[in-house]
């Protein structure tokens, strides 16, 4: 027996949550979908494929003031970052949820990032299984699935007249609207099938082909913008700078990307990773070799956002397949 909630009752539940918590949900804006704070549940877009930016922006925002330093009455005062609100994020796809779990590894690795931890502790994730797959999706190759409950607190799966509600953690169980749930014997639909790519042996393949001219050729068309890193649920490079505004100093952290020109330039203008090929190779080395070595799995969730958004169609699935077929062969 599973528990289900009707579509209209789902809206009621979300309405209640928006009063006790800050509710964040997918919202349509200018023909894209983004996670936004929602006060009116009518604004929620239920029929979205996936958001342009992943849910990571609510744990690791594009821009964040870490703390500020002010002078008050001759004393120097350290003002911590703004208080976090108790939040609920609704509509997290399993790929995004895996992304958050992947980010947990570097951010919560001791000594943990205190601000990220606060975001994490104060946020409850309501996941939404995928009914359809899209040509860019390949999550089953990266360790998750369209109906994977592993990394959320509650998972909803759409059925004929509502949603199956599955509490995954204690945190999730605590927010279930017991009065709106009904028992049902409906079975969950089978998840859609997606494109796949074999990642077996990819770490070795990446290591073997470090010096291959393949990277130079692939990077020929790369524009070295920051798009792939910014939309990726598992990318987490950032820059930190202090700004002085009339004596009030703010330490600001913002997103960065290994692709941006000058990412590895150091004082004196020396650049260890000069060149388009090495820059682009770094992205794939990090995701498919270094991160797995350190944290146990590839830093990729198979969400396909990078594939969708790259202006020149650099497709990580193509790269994974190509690299495995290199090795031993010289040149391309």
């Amino acid at each position, binding site marked *: 027996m599973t528990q289900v909630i009707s579509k209209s009752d789902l809206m009621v539940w979300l309405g209640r949550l928006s009063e006790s918590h800050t509710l964040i949900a997918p919202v349509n804006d200018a023909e894209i979908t983004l996670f936004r704070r929602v006060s009116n549940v009518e604004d929620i877009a239920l029929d979205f494929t996936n958001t342009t930016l992943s849910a990571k922006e609510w744990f690791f925002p594009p821009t964040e003031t870490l703390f500020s330093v002010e002078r008050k009455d001759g004393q120097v005062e350290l003002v911590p970052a703004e208080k976090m609100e108790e939040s609920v994020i609704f509509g997290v796809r399993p790929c995004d949820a895996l992304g958050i779990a992947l980010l947990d590894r570097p951010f919560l690795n001791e000594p943990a990032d205190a601000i990220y931890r606060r975001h994490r502790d104060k946020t409850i994730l309501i996941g939404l299984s995928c009914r359809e797959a899209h040509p860019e999706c390949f999550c089953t190759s990266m360790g998750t699935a369209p109906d994977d409950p592993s990394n959320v607190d509650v998972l909803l799966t759409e059925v004929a007249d509502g949603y199956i509600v599955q509490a995954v953690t204690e945190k999730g169980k605590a927010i279930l609207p017991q009065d709106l749930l009904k028992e049902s014997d409906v079975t969950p639909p089978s998840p859609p099938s997606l494109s796949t790519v074999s990642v077996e042996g990819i770490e070795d393949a990446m290591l073997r082909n470090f010096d291959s001219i393949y990277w130079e050729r692939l990077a020929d068309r790369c524009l070295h913008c920051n798009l792939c890193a910014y939309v990726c649920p598992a990318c987490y490079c950032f820059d930190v700078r202090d*700004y002085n*505004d*009339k004596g009030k100093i703010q330490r600001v952290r913002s997103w960065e990307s290994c692709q941006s020109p000058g990412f590895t330039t150091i004082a004196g203008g020396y650049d260890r990773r000069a060149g388009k090929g090495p820059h682009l190779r770094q992205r794939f080395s990090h995701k498919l070799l270094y991160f797995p070595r350190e944290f146990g799995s590839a830093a990729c969730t198979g969400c396909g956002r990078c594939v969708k958004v790259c202006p020149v169609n650099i497709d990580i699935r193509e790269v994974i397949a190509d690299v495995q077929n290199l090795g031993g062969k010289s040149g391309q």
Partner: protein
Amino acid sequence: MAVEDFQPRMVGFLCNWCSYAGADMAGTSRMSYPPNIRIIRVPCSGRVDPLLIVKAFQQGADGVLVAGCHPGDCHYVEGNYYARRRLALFRLLLEFIGIDPRRLCVEWVSAVEGKRFSQVVTSFTEELVRLGPRSEVQVGA
């Protein structure tokens, strides 16, 4: 805030050879002009980068004045010709993104025109009082 209480904050980019000297002359001749203007000396009006102007607005300026030598009299011969084209075009872009074009005032003031300088600043200040403060700006970075 009541209109008569509003004190506009103005930034003035004055070229060293003509308009800055003109402002100086206004001072030495005891011609008064509103103290709302903060003067920044530049070598030539041609040095005024549009970035300076938007940055001034972002940091809280209600108006920006750019003053240079009269066309034909530029100390560096051509600088103010470039400035004329650049600022004419930039003002149109500012208007397009919602900044009142009257908030960017461009005038040619020579080194002997102390009186004219004080008149320019006075009327620009009055104009800004009429226009009111620029909308909420976030300061920082």
